[in-house]
């Protein structure tokens, strides 16, 4: 439980960080997921690139009224406490507030949460439902990737070698301010068994956007559920059918806290509750789901 040796750099800018990553470095953000793996020697980077001194990666801005830009190195606690987030995308604040504990939130970052690609990650689920887009840079340029496409497999992100996640763009409007984040965990801390985020549709035609974590091997947009709900209404039968559809197309996730069948049931229940809350109105922040 002590890391193997590595070189360590602490670049002051995105550009330099990208260069170090291009040299084969591994990004260190809040370290709340990377450090345990380093200690287990399950990850053995030759070079660790500490992002914590890059101020341009930190902070939340909404220069444009249509979207919120969140720096990859913004800490969970910052997201949880930010007044703009609280009013524009309260589900993201709730997802952040329920991430781990006070100490984890003081270090862990929204970018790290996405890049770690754990299928149960709070921020990822919220961001997927919000239709957020990741801005990814490397020495040779940058690309934009919808967060929903950031995950290749359990704990495998879609980042290519040398790429740095710099920002997350969260579109506002379209019900974003009425979204709901719900999770169910063995105890109220740490990683949930299943989490869901629901953003109600804006207007008659658009149905809700739904994301689920902990059901499949990656966090996902539950398009089958969205479709079933749009066609049949938010009945539990429709939701369950949608979940079955998801599981027919993708491999389910399982661990000692719950097999896939249990997760499917839990996801149905949480989505049902999420839709109900979203319909009932904003700002329900009940502790127990």
């Amino acid at each position: 439980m002590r890391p193997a040796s590595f070189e360590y750099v602490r670049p002051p800018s995105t550009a330099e960080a990208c260069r170090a990553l291009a040299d084969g470095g591994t990004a260190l953000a809040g370290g709340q997921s990377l450090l345990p793996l380093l200690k287990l020697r399950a990850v053995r980077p030759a070079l660790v690139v500490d992002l914590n001194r890059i101020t341009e990666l930190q902070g939340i801005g909404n220069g444009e009224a249509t979207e919120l830009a969140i720096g990859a190195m913004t800490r969970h606690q910052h997201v949880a406490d930010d007044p703009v987030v609280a009013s524009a995308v309260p589900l993201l604040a709730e997802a952040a507030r329920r991430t781990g504990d006070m100490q984890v939130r003081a270090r862990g970052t929204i970018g790290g949460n996405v890049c770690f690609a754990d299928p149960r990650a709070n921020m990822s689920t919220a961001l997927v439902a919000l239709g957020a887009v990741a801005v990814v840079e490397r020495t040779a340029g940058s690309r934009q990737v919808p967060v929903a496409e950031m995950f290749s497999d359990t704990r495998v992100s879609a980042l290519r070698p040398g790429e740095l996640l710099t920002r997350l763009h969260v579109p506002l409007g379209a019900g974003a301010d009425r979204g709901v984040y719900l999770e169910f965990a063995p105890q109220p801390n740490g990683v949930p068994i299943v989490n869901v985020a629901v953003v109600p549709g804006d207007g008659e035609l658009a149905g809700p956007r739904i994301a689920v974590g902990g059901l499949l091997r990656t966090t996902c947009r539950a398009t089958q559920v969205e479709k079933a709900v749009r066609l049949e209404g938010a009945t539990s039968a429709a939701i369950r059918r949608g979940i079955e559809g998801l599981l027919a197309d993708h491999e389910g996730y399982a661990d000692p806290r719950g097999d896939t069948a249990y997760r499917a049931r839990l996801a149905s229940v949480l989505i049902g509750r999420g839709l109900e809350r979203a319909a009932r109105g904003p700002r329900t922040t009940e502790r127990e789901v």
Partner: protein
Amino acid sequence: MTVDEMRQQPWVGRRIPRQEDNRLVTGTGRFADDVTPQGALHCAILRSPHPHARIVRVDVARARSMPGVVAAVSGAEAREHWAPLPPNFALPGIVAPRVYGLAVDKVVYEGEPVAAVAATDRYLAEDALEAIEVEYEVLEPVMDVDEGAVDWYGDGSPASPASPRLYDEWDDNVQVRYDFAYGDVERSFGEADAVVEARVAVHRYAAVPLEPRAVVAEYDPDGRTLTVRVATQVPHQMRTTYARIFGLPETSVRVLTGDVGGGYGSKGQADGDVVPILLSILTGRPVKWAETREEWMLAGPVGSRGYVHHAELALRSDGTVLALRDRLLADVGCDGVVRAIGLAALIVGATYIPGPYRIDAYDVRVRGLVTNKPAYGAYRGYGKDIANQLIERLMDKAAAALGMDPLELRRRNLLTEFPHEICTGPIIESGSFVECLDLVQEKMDLPALRREQERARANGRFLGVGVVSTMEPSAGAIPMSVFSGFESATVRLHPDGTVTALTGLQPIGQGVQTSYAQVVADCVGVSPADVRVRWGDTDAVPYGLGAYASRGATFGVAAAHQAATEVGRKLLLAASVALEVTPDDLELGGGTVRAKGSPGTAMDVADVAQRTYFQPGPYAMLPGEKEPVLEASAVYTNPEVNWLPDEHGRLRIYPTHGSGAMGCLVEVDVETGGVDVRKVWYVHDSGRLINPGIVENQLIGSSVQAFGGTMFEQIVYDDAGTLLTRTLGDYQLPNAASVPDIEVSHIETPSPITPLGTKGLGEGGHIGIGAVLLSAVEDALRPFGAEVLETPLTPPRILQLIDRARESRARESRAQTAGAVRDDV
């Protein structure tokens, strides 16, 4: 009360702040890992990745040449330098494997130590582990016990016929066989109006103290002396054990403990801890080992629980219990005798299954089978929970079968007269089981809870209430074991009036320093602040046995009390010389000795002490006394312990027994399967209390642990024998948000067999919580008709229970309809 009167009040019984806390809150406590001697090396242990394998070859040569490495050793090389780990007890019916601190030719669990290194720092030590080459021949692991294939009657059918054996020299995989019968069980079952049956099963969970194992070993090659600072509950037995393993005279071995970060039974043996000692002996340098959490989860005394009862209870229609039969089967991991000490818990469990009830016909058979999992450790409860879990579930079932109120059924059978010898041999010396039950019912306001439950059900919410009785045997004294039955103390009143109390007991969080000071203070008339309790240095304190089996308030306190009483007697004698008043007319308290009724005639305790030692000294102050100094040593044994089997083969190893009752309120979310434990009520009687604050912490703490164990803590392996729960995140210890409020109430029925009327305590919550949670969840699910007889009560299990109950209802109603149709025809 005036300040002066306050000072005269006895200290025993008072809720005073703990002396240990000032250092613990400021970070100046001293835990084993806090000490790093000059030039210390750091030990790292290479562990088997396979649960069952033969070791073909271990090569440490490359590791030896790594930077910073001073020693590297394989099991085969180590073998020359030490003896096998000694069994911790040798009871009939139990077999002990022959194993070393590092495996030699076979590993029987994932995580078993196979080689070790000592290096100048911990990082380098771990680097070196990667350079050790081991070749294994992987064997099929035995990961489960087959309930269907157990040889209960000794007719030779092997315990689990298909499974490979763990130990080549054993006939089968059975580590313990224990059978006991009393009374005419067959006839009682024949005469019964009702018989209820239950299969009650509890999964594997463990002590998981927050402080992992830690050892600092210092071998001095010149003097051939060994000093070991270690996180242990039993320092003296560790000295004896280390001396044996390393072939040293006990006089050359010194064991030190300071603060110990929780034990709960788990720190009572030498296992991996001997590896750093060996490395210190081999290198002649201090060697430190502070294990990681993952190592604890892999290779600590992680087994505990993991048992299943198949039982039947026979009753008359009026609720009188006639007889009980149980078959108790446990998965004891690779061993519960040598590498860990959990095995005897099964026998304790079997002994106390009749619990606080009058049961005169009883037949029990116990089998503990080894599997390729880590060792079976002791953990708070130590079998008393195994007993309670069964008898209380049977009581609820019987009440349902007879259509009786479950508390009424209990009252009808609870013991009310004391002393009472129960059928398995122990004497329940005093108790208040019915009173506890009555009081818990009152505290809970059961009728109000029932109304709340009704209202909730009408709104589609599912509340449940459970109530159980508990019995808390304490102060276990096990023959033929290192957990023998005495305790020692020395009390010394110094010339300045301060007191040193030496105890063989070991503090592990239970407030020994404060509560023993309270006891001693009363006997010598000073304040607890003037008493310094010392422990955990085998060169400084008398040979004692440490902390296990809730023995402190019985054995430890009684020894300290006995020694302090003797000092008090001599103190009064000396004062009587100085004051010219007969000792009978003197009283002690508030730092003074006074003549009763004439407060003017008084002296400070310090004054008397000074005179006794020096001015003029013992010949004048204590003339004729055999030991004319203000010091005494005592060894306490309890008269109720009996190690000679009676005509039924019965022993009495637990002398004191607490009474209790527990209630709880839960709410079940029948969609997610989540259970919210909203409140726990605990009425407890362990005789006279020394410090109620300390007692309450013990009661609440033990409840919190079993709450976690019953609800969500779990140790899980996959079919190949790989541990899946390697971190605390996987395992889930209860946290601040999940733990319910626990309201404690006391009844104080003094024990007639201890000097202060105290009884041991500390495991009580752990004994009752499992059964009361199962009972409450079953109550919540009553509309579905689900039976709740198995742990953990994780959300998936709750949903499964509801599903099964629904299915069986559906089946029943289909059958009924089919029957009705046939009737029509």
